[in-house]
């Protein structure tokens, strides 16, 4: 005596743009969804969320041992480090040019470009390029890196409210995709995407960075902004129909929950499992909110996340 349930299926008027990163035959694709994530009974999630592992141009000082031990012997050589990440199964390498920060090596745009070229030559997977976060410096560095990587169709970050013009122009001229960053604000996200497309960058070369927070440290703000952006994009707002980019690793690994050894916080249990879970649960939750590109740090997190994606997407 069953009762037939009249299955409710949402039909949206628009799709999320599909952004292609890298060059044949090693391209990866983000986005393309026709409904909310993983609801395969009513629509498509044609591309599983991508995972990038982070590589720095200098040896990070703050990374805990359970992280650095996974990259023993390669962290002083970005190209070798990237090779290790590729071996671990990363879809992309996220090269962070932290060495260009004035407080670090203050390395020149030419030096950064040299590193980026060496990393690009060392791996087959496509590259994400991130600056050091100091806007005046990033403008010079990213411009130079875009130039030497011309034709490689990288994903480059980040265009921000006050400094989007130069980096957008570099992406247009040298053929790259652009990360547009906004401080957890759907209106600024839309406004910036309009400005960037008006400069001539096609909307299928734009990725939204909503500046996510880690589990326990503001995750819910990102979660809801991302759900709203995704629903708006699917409902027809073409200036919000971009795949979303989540800097998971940098947020997770500065939390105490990931970095505190079990001797310091015995009530929190085993550190290695706790830290990986912190990174995977953050990524998996933001994937439910519509995140398409996850930048992570620990290869164990990458592995668990990919198994989870397989379980969500395959029969």
């Amino acid at each position: 005596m069953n009762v037939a349930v009249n299955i409710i299926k949402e039909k949206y008027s628009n799709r999320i743009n599909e952004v292609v990163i890298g060059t044949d035959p090693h391209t990866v694709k983000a986005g393309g969804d026709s409904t909310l994530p993983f609801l395969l009974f009513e629509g498509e999630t044609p591309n599983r969320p991508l995972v990038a592992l982070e590589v720095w141009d200098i040896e990070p000082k703050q990374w805990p041992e359970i992280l650095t031990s996974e990259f023993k012997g390669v962290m002083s050589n970005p190209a070798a480090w990237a090779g290790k990440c590729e071996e671990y199964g990363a879809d992309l390498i996220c090269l962070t040019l932290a060495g260009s920060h004035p407080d670090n090596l203050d390395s020149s745009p030419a030096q950064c470009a040299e590193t980026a070229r060496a990393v690009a030559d060392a791996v087959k997977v496509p590259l994400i390029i991130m600056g050091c976060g100091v806007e005046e410096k990033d403008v010079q560095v990213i411009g130079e890196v875009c130039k030497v990587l011309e034709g490689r169709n990288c994903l480059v970050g980040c265009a921000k409210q006050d400094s989007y013009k130069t980096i957008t122009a570099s992406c247009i001229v040298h053929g790259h995709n652009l990360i547009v960053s906004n401080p957890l604000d759907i209106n600024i996200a839309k406004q910036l995407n309009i400005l960037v497309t008006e400069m001539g960058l096609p909307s299928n070369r734009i990725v939204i960075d909503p500046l996510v927070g880690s589990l326990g440290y503001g995750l819910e703000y990102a979660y809801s902004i991302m759900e709203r952006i995704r629903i708006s994009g699917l409902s027809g707002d073409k200036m919000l129909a971009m795949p979303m980019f989540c800097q998971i690793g940098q947020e997770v690994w500065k939390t105490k929950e990931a970095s505190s050894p079990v001797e310091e916080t015995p009530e929190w249990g085993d550190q290695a499992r706790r830290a990986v879970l912190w990174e995977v649960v953050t990524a998996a939750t933001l994937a439910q909110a519509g995140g398409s590109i996850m930048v992570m740090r620990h290869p164990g997190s990458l592995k668990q996340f990919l198994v989870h994606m397989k379980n969500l997407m395959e029969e």
Partner: protein
Amino acid sequence: MTGLDIFKLLPKTNCKKCGQATCLAFAMALANAKADVGQCPDLSDTARETLEAASAPQITLVKIGAGPNETQAGNETVLFRHDKCFVNPAPLAVLISDKSENPAAETLKANSLVFDRLGQMHGINLLAVQNHSGDTVVFAETVKVVSENTNFPLILISEDPLAIEKALEITGAKKPLVYAATEENYPAMTELSRKYNVPLAVKGRDLDHLAGLAEKVAALGHRQLVLDSGARSVRQVLADQTQIRRQALRRFRPFGYPTIAFAVNSRDPLQAVVEAGVYIAKYAGIVVLPSADPEVVLPLVTLRLNIFTDPQKPAAVDSRIYEIGSPDDSAPVLVTSNFSLTYFCVASDVEASRVPAYILPIDTDGVSVLTGWAAGKFTPERIAAMLKESGIEDKVAHRRVIIPGGVAVLSGKLHDLSGWEVIVGPVESSGIPAFLKRRWIA
């Protein structure tokens, strides 16, 4: 129902007995949940029934347990937390098998799964005792041991009515959740649950079957129900949870109850945790976990706290002097915003520095430092007023205040207004320990 739909059902006498000037005004008040159906004494029985059904919660509130550890699920009203908020943080249950060699030890371990998050204690809520052995006596003994060693309410997991009956004889007064009524056993399970007045989970083979079974149990007079579509793969559970929530919000009656989801992916314990996270975010009323390891439970408790935070209310701490360690009159004074996330980051980083200090969270209506600055709520005027009025001037002998690095631009004005020397601290709270060691102790 709209106000006009409701108006059509009212007596239209404008008798004012309900306290409203007209029937139309009363209808509008009802539509906005500002009045109660019972306030109209002259409603016809059909109209009363229709209106009560329309104002009943879309998802029944189900209570498990008795006394201070009672927990509940249901009463949800939205699909997305940004539409309003999620109401009942999903109770988390830890599984204990009746084949366990030491159920008492497992129970004690689970009892300690409570963590201090942002100054409040959060943890698991239920223990689920599972009849793996297939033996009713072993099950009853395990239930007894677990029940004697914990204050958490129980979920009794067995499809054998005899096993459930024996377990209810022991713990029925503590109001456990019975899991589960199935096609084969539902008359007996429903009768037992009614006899002990305890909630009952209904386990279907798929959504259609679940809907039929829930109706049959409800027809026997039991309404404290919890739904399980029987799915166990994360892909299908997500689809079913989504569908059940959508149907419930559209008042499809068989699905008007909270759900239970089992994160019991046996191949990989870490995957089970990730899947439990998905169920917390995506509509599970109750989530059952396979492990009681703290590193497994902590991320899930934290995620639940995040997802069930009311997005309409900025989380704020009181704007007053907070003492970290035992600061004396030479201790540093740091100002920040009263957004609780900001305050607790700063507090934990000050604590990590092991430098006793005073923290003054400025009242920014619970927004962060930079948002507060942009919105004119984290201003030199407000900081100067707090330095003057909080009593900090009596607590420290110096007049040096540390402000967040992101608002260094406030320094001059703040100095002019307050007379205090202004020291610009780090931009990120995580830089505080290094900063205090360099700038204060040295």
